[in-house]
């Protein structure tokens, strides 16, 4: 089929597009972001471009002055490309992305990659979706009967009737913008079109109409927006396949390392806006890079599911999180309705929808809902526990009869931030580590490449081995025995794990006492939260039949080592299951299944919340856990054996 070449100026970017493409669609395919707050409905008048060469067909608009029309200014969303063209994008039309270059990392995050990195998650199958179930946005190919003198039903009703018949829906909604374009679109496509559909309660909404059968071209993104790490995954909805996963450090970190300092920053002038720009630029980076790598046209992305802690979701939606940190800690919204992608600011098909996994409280967000869903904690007969190790460590306890969650601020150490040689669980991360009696080091990196740093599971192994071989004391300080691997670096002792000549980063991979301190705090917070949650519900660790460990710290986790350092309770290893990033797993299950999304709502509705800051014993529990594995060795009988 004939294609047109579109060249964007001043970028000098050229792209080939189908003849029915608008300039806005072409720009998105080329990875250029235009200002289009109305989502391409032709009502905001922001996507002005100047035609330099070639022919276009434009729908009439009142948003351009006669002066502008004379200067060949067009609205990109209302202008269909009719030949090879050259288009200039004026500065005010372009969405500002200069922000990314401007940021300066705080010292504790120095050296961390801000670019999205391919990350490796534990292998996992996407869930089977039954035939009656549908993805959140799905496609329907229709071959309509053309009208004739015996059948003069109007175009829209013809389309809606056919849709209702196939889908058994009572009510089908369609936007005015879709109606306006429908007549020529149906006829040009010889009455064979594909609808992008989403359910809205009992109603079905037609998001988009495309010519011909494009049902195989339906992609979606899921995002886990963490305080420290943002993870995104591209999913081929038609094939039910994960195409790629990337992670990026949350750029909001420049404005504060934890949730509370972000909220304080949001209260300042422009603070909310800056935080929004930082987070949305992270998401758009992941989107752009995954699309390029997997050769996906972003016009074929109609849905995204976002999950994350409550504050992060507020900031993504530019909702002031002021009341989250004030008693009685009430968030503005817990169940965010599906939103148009342009309202959120993601660079997907402008008609795409963004869905949000419902949260539970101000400090337990949709990531926990996703985790409960992914691990099926809500379907267990026996008592189970989900521990999500993140900057905000969350713990959910329950079974099919009840669910309760709590959260504790753990810090980002297990995500590889705030630790000297820390990194994501991406290629080159040391994820397994052991020592022999001659202090010889053995390690595995993700992807079996030269090491670049240490990820969370690597740190757990390192500390467990250090304890085992008596390299550190139980308070985390290095013993003073002459160890050739330990050296002094400006007054701080550090252990060289890999010397620079054997790394891919040309600097020594080390672990220092302050790293150990940060990890100790993180594990103590999580252990204390877990222990108090059980105590409050009058259970003990022994009552737990299943413990799921979630978090982005590696592709695998040595449970014994995690017990040795006191992150996990001392129970038989069979009780534990490392499940990786369950926020992403749960969100992708929802992307593919309306039923799972409904189940997520039920989980969130039914889950109770325990506020740890109201628990006077939290500080005691936390302080008592600031030791390896714990100051109360009776809780860790297997330590030392």
């Amino acid at each position, binding site marked *: 089929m004939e294609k047109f070449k579109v060249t964007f100026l001043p970028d000098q970017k050229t792209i080939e597009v189908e003849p029915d493409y608008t300039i806005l669609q072409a720009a998105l395919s080329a990875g250029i972001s235009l200002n289009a707050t109305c989502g391409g409905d032709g009502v905001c008048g922001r996507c002005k471009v100047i035609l330099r060469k070639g022919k276009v067909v434009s729908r009439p608009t009142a948003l351009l002055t006669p002066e502008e029309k004379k200067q060949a200014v067009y609205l990109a969303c209302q202008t269909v490309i009719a030949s090879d063209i050259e288009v200039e994008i004026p500065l005010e039309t372009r969405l500002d992305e200069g922000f990314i270059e401007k940021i300066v990392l705080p010292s504790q995050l120095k050296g961390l990659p801000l670019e999205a990195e391919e990350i490796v998650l534990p292998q996992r199958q996407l869930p089977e979706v039954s035939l009656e179930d549908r993805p959140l946005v799905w496609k329907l190919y229709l071959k309509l009967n053309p009208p004739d003198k015996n059948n003069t039903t109007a175009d829209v009703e013809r389309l809606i009737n056919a849709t209702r018949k196939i889908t058994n829906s009572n009510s089908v909604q369609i936007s005015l913008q879709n109606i306006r374009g429908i007549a020529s679109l149906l006829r040009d496509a010889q009455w064979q079109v594909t609808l992008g559909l989403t359910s809205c309660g009992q109603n079905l909404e037609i998001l988009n109409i495309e010519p011909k059968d494009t049902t195989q071209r339906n992609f979606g993104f899921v995002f886990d927006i963490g305080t420290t790490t943002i993870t995104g995954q591209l999913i081929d909805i038609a094939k039910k396949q994960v195409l790629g996963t990337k992670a990026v450090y949350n750029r909001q970190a420049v404005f504060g390392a934890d949730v509370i300092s972000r909220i304080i920053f949001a209260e300042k002038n422009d603070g909310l806006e800056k935080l929004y720009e930082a987070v949305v630029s992270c998401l758009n980076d992941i989107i752009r890079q995954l699309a390029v790598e997997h050769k996906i046209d972003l016009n074929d992305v109609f849905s995204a599911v976002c999950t994350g802690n409550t504050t992060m979701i507020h900031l993504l939606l530019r909702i002031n999180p002021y009341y989250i940190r004030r008693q009685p800690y009430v968030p503005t919204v817990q169940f965010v309705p599906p939103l148009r992608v342009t309202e959120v600011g993601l660079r997907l098909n402008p008609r795409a929808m963004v869905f949000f996994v419902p949260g539970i409280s101000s400090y337990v967000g949709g990531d926990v809902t996703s985790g409960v869903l992914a691990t099926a904690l809500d379907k267990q007969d026996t008592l189970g526990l989900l521990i999500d190790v993140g900057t905000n460590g969350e713990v959910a306890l329950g079974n099919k009869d009840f669910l309760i969650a709590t959260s504790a601020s753990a810090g980002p150490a297990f995500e590889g931030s705030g630790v000297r040689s820390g990194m994501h669980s991406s290629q080159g991360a040391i994820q397994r580590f052991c020592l022999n009696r001659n202090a010889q080091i053995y390690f595995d990196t993700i992807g079996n490449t030269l090491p670049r740093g240490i990820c969370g599971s690597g740190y757990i192994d390192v500390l467990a081995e250090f304890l085992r071989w008596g390299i550190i004391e139980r*308070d985390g300080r290095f013993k003073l025995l002459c160890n050739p691997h330990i050296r002094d670096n400006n007054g701080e002792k550090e252990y060289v794990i890999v010397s620079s000549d054997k790394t891919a980063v040309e600097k020594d991979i080390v672990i220092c006492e302050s790293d150990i301190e940060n990890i100790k705090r993180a594990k103590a917070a999580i252990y204390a939260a877990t222990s108090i949650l059980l105590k409050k519900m009058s259970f003990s660790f022994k009552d737990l039949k299943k413990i799921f460990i979630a978090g982005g710290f590696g592709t695998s986790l040595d449970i014994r080592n995690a017990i040795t350092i006191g992150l996990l309770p001392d129970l038989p290893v069979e009780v534990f299951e490392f499940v990786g990033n369950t926020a992403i797993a749960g969100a992708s299950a929802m992307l593919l299944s309306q039923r799972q999304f409904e189940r997520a709502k039920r989980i969130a509705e039914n889950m109770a919340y325990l506020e740890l800051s109201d628990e006077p014993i939290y500080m005691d529990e936390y302080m008592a856990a*600031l030791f390896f594995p714990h*100051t109360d060795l009776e809780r860790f009988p297997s330590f030392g054996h």
Partner: protein
Amino acid sequence: MAIEQLKECWQTKINTVTIGATAEQGGSRLHTVTVGGQTGLPFLSAEAEIPYKPQIAFEIWDILPLDWPEDLMRVYGGCLANPLEWAEKCVEDFNAGLLCIRLQGAHPENENRTPEQEAHFIQQLLRQIKVPIIILGCGDDEKDNAVLCACAEAAKGERCLIGSASSNNYKTLVASCIADGHNVIAQSPIDINIAKQLNILITDIGLSADRIVMDPTVGALGYGLEYAYSIMERARLAAFSGDKMMAMPFICMIGQEAWRSKEARASQQDFPTWGEATARGIIWEATTAVSFLQAGADILVMRHPQAIEKVRQYIELFNI
């Protein structure tokens, strides 16, 4: 009908620690001092076994005390300049059963005495005085490591109580206490968790738990006494509830804290309504001491003989 007395029964008892070794035990003391062993909170002799009374140690310096008020100095007369005479006076005149020697002269800012000098002094003292002793360093970590090691060696076999080990500096002292058969003071900054951590770290090196006495760092009456009190109480409750790493006896530096307070030092001239200064200082020290007895103190290190006498009477009165 008689009202039934409810009795609290705890799982664990406090470790017993013995200070001093007699000739049969390889030392040269005429008697030993044992603390700890109680199975319940202080004063509750009806429900708890309290085998040993709290002990009071007289504080003695190796140099002329620097910041002691005159009223306190006067009671010892002219012997303060000679620590051996001072020690003898405590034993002979004031019936001291336990002495606490503070090697303040080793401090680089004082006389900067060498480890050898201090070791020699300890040897002389042990020859002259036959009661068990506690040895305290000067407070400078580096110096104390050298001085206390030398003194521990000089006092080998005498089963002294030596301090203080802190979480930042404990290895050298603990190692030499193990080598020379002494007990150790584990000092923590009014923090129950650090206290416990330090006990674990010390036992990890190999000193058995019944050779550790905890110094929780206390404050005088009016200077944070309540905080220290509650820390001690919590530690004790934890110990009785089964936490063996909290089950060490307590030593409290009463004199040092009480005689720092303005109320103990100020003259009557400056504060006419406060009453006679000497009596005030004694009362201040005694009240502080009695408060910490109630919190569970096992060894009180005190300064004024009259304050010590009052506290002795108190201990006898309550038969604890």
